């Protein structure tokens, strides 16, 4: 079995997001880019399976859609243990164009399991995994909290509202992964970092589809106002504020 792990590069969680160009673009200066946490957990589980001879998983490839400036994040994935990598040389697009590009690579390179994080921690779109499955006309399983493979057969545990379900799925399929699939991400070991130098990153032309959506404008949530304290003996004031100031009742 061959696993393909889709990775996004996202600003690290301590980043203060700023916008430029009339709030239509994210100011990327000074941002430290990291692998999207859900993708990193997918990669960790994929590597665990590859390292277990009984799983039947032979290789783990990572794929990223974006410009060459994202390659440090790809090499980090290689340092963590991925066997090789693909970069679709595309300016950042929307979920539709990214999924189309990845699907095109899967058609050419033939993967059995395509893993995506449930969302990326920057745009939180939660769409790419499902769209890849749609483009390829293969099954898609979401909410995966456990992924087992033995002798080429896959068993999946899904988180459902208030419970779990265990499902089987034919190959190939797209798996949309949430936290729980792996305990914690792997740390890139020195040997892995050294070996990442010599691992291949295959670069593909942009996918066949243009983006369907574009950003009109970014807005930050309004700053939180000061907290108002109301005397518990004065419910009229509370009602007045809720009606006339907050306008919620």
């Amino acid at each position: 079995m061959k696993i393909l792990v889709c990775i996004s590069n996202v600003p690290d969680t301590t980043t203060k997001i700023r916008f430029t160009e009339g709030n239509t673009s994210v100011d990327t200066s000074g941002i430290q880019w990291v692998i999207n946490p859900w993708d990193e957990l997918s990669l960790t589980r994929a590597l665990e399976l590859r390292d277990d001879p009984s799983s039947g998983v032979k290789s783990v490839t990572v794929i990223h859609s974006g410009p060459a400036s994202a390659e440090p994040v790809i090499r980090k994935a290689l340092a963590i243990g991925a066997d090789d990598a693909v970069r679709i040389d595309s300016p950042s697009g929307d979920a539709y164009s990214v999924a189309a590009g990845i699907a095109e690579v899967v058609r050419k390179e033939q993967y059995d399991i395509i893993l995506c994080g449930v969302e990326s921690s920057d745009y939180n779109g939660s769409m790419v995994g499902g769209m890849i499955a749609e483009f390829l006309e293969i099954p898609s399983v979401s909410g995966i909290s456990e992924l087992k493979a033995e002798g080429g057969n896959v068993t999946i545990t899904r988180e459902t509202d208030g419970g779990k379900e265990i499902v089987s799925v034919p190959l190939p399929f797209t798996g949309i992964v949430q936290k729980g699939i792996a305990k914690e991400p792997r740390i890139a070991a020195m040997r892995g970092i050294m070996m990442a130098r010599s691992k291949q990153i295959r670069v593909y032309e942009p996918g066949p589809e243009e983006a369907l959506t574009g950003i009109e404008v970014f807005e930050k949530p309004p700053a939180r106002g000061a907290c108002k304290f109301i005397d518990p003996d004065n419910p009229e004031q509370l009602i007045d504020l809720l009606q006339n100031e907050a306008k919620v009742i």
Partner: protein
Amino acid sequence: MEIKKNLKSGEFLVADTDAADVFIPEEFNEEQLMIAQSCRDFLAMEVSPQMAELEKGNRELMKSILKKSGELGLMGVSIPEEFGGFGQSFVTQMLVAEASGAGYSFSVAFMAHCGIGTLPILYYGNREQREKYVPKLASGELIGSYCLTEPGAGSDANAGKTSATLSEDGKYYILNGQKMWITNAGFADIQIVFAKIDNDRVLSAFIVESSYPGVVIGPDEQKMGIKGSSTCQIYYNDVKVPVENLLGKRGEGFRIALNILHMGRIKLGANVLGSAKKAIEDSVRYANERKQFGVLISSFGAIKHKLAEQVIRLFTCESAVYRVSRDIDDLTDTLLADCGDTGRASIEAIGHYAVEAAILKVAGSEMLDYVSDEAVQIYGGMGYSAETDVERSYRDSRINRIFEGTNEINRLLVSDTAMKRAMKGDFDLFGKAAGLYAGLDNLLETMAEGDDYYGEKSTYTGNFKKAILICIHGAVERYGRTLVHQQEVLNNIADMIIETYLSESLRLRVQKLESLKSDLTVYRDILDVNIYDAASRIRKSAHDAIYAFAEEGQAENLVRAADTLTAVRGVNVKSARRRIADKLIEDNAYKF
């Protein structure tokens, strides 16, 4: 002043450096950044969650975490590939030392193992010794320690009484004696032990396995800080050490000890950067959460002053740390081409930069003390609670001014070594100093500021150097060979040298940043405040030295010269510090 490349140790006192020739932290490559990130990830995932248990003195836990860091390869960063390591540059080694610095007592255990516990064998061992021990130390299979200090031999290391007597059959040295303050002693497998063979006046070094009969490890010391690290006394009772475990040549121990201490000092300079960054981040995050009088305390000018000063001192030290690191890499490459032995080339290069090593040790340890002290102050009452990391940082920081040679010894080393290297002919210090001294009147008349921002700053640091040379000349002229007994004056000169090296390194870094960053406002602010403050500190040190050594009637002229040479343009330091603090507060993290 002449601009030169590849300056010798201490030569910066009489020569300038081109900004293009220095290495700055903003130039780390992708691989170096990835290695540092792995260190930080390791601390976050394996060390921080266990810190409370480590602080209780759980030695097995510490050993197991050390071994995990070995499995990850972090212990092999300084080790050549032929001995199971990853053969990284000295700059990368220093970056790892920095990244591990946020690990409190783990960092002490890790650094002791990777540095003084392992590298003596790599640097001075023969082929068999290296092959036998170094790969296992690099992987964490064995843990190392370094046993120099004795009850009667601390700063005066050569006064050690531990003895080694050759057995009658000539197969062993019989070791007897006692060592103390030995980091990792409670679980180390290997000890680098210094002892005198027979009636030698000088030390020799030995590789001792803790399992040898007669090695007795005392209980752990109860310490003020770094409580998670194991520190014990070790007793040697007729320990039979195979003769093949003599490290280096007989009588070479003191040289080994000194060079290893140079290495330890310089890495301490990097290590404290990581500790300080953690304390600064703790400080700003607390200041951004804590409200008093209805507003966040980070909005107060008094708190901004503290936050900015923490940043200024850290950033300045960091500039010097990586400047020297690249100098050591360059010299290592040159020496390697001559001798073909990576270990020997590395330690010779490190030992060469003894002046800078002592500078970094003093400046770094005192920077961290300042930063952690102010971190506690920003936390207020909460900072006094043992629940907070800043309280631990404050206690853990203190040892850095004591171990790897006290700061008092290191201050003496700064001035003494610089003068000795000049006497040896490495650079012309005394001729230039005499020239300046003889032309004091001309000096006062020809003072000129540079014609641009960096030119002006360069003039200032050049003038600081002139002030140092004048003090050195005056002190040498007055005291001659007895200057060694005037430790106060030597310390004044050392303080001037330390300030100047730091300010110059900072200036070179900011100047080089011109081509790497678009907005340098806060970096220029850091440089402005540093130069402004350093000038007054240097002036004070110069005054103290001059009034100590100057003859009647001579002091006034010299003090005037010192005043002129430390005169700098006024700076609105309040506004500059506020801008620096505002960036820290806005980022809510150290992102300079």
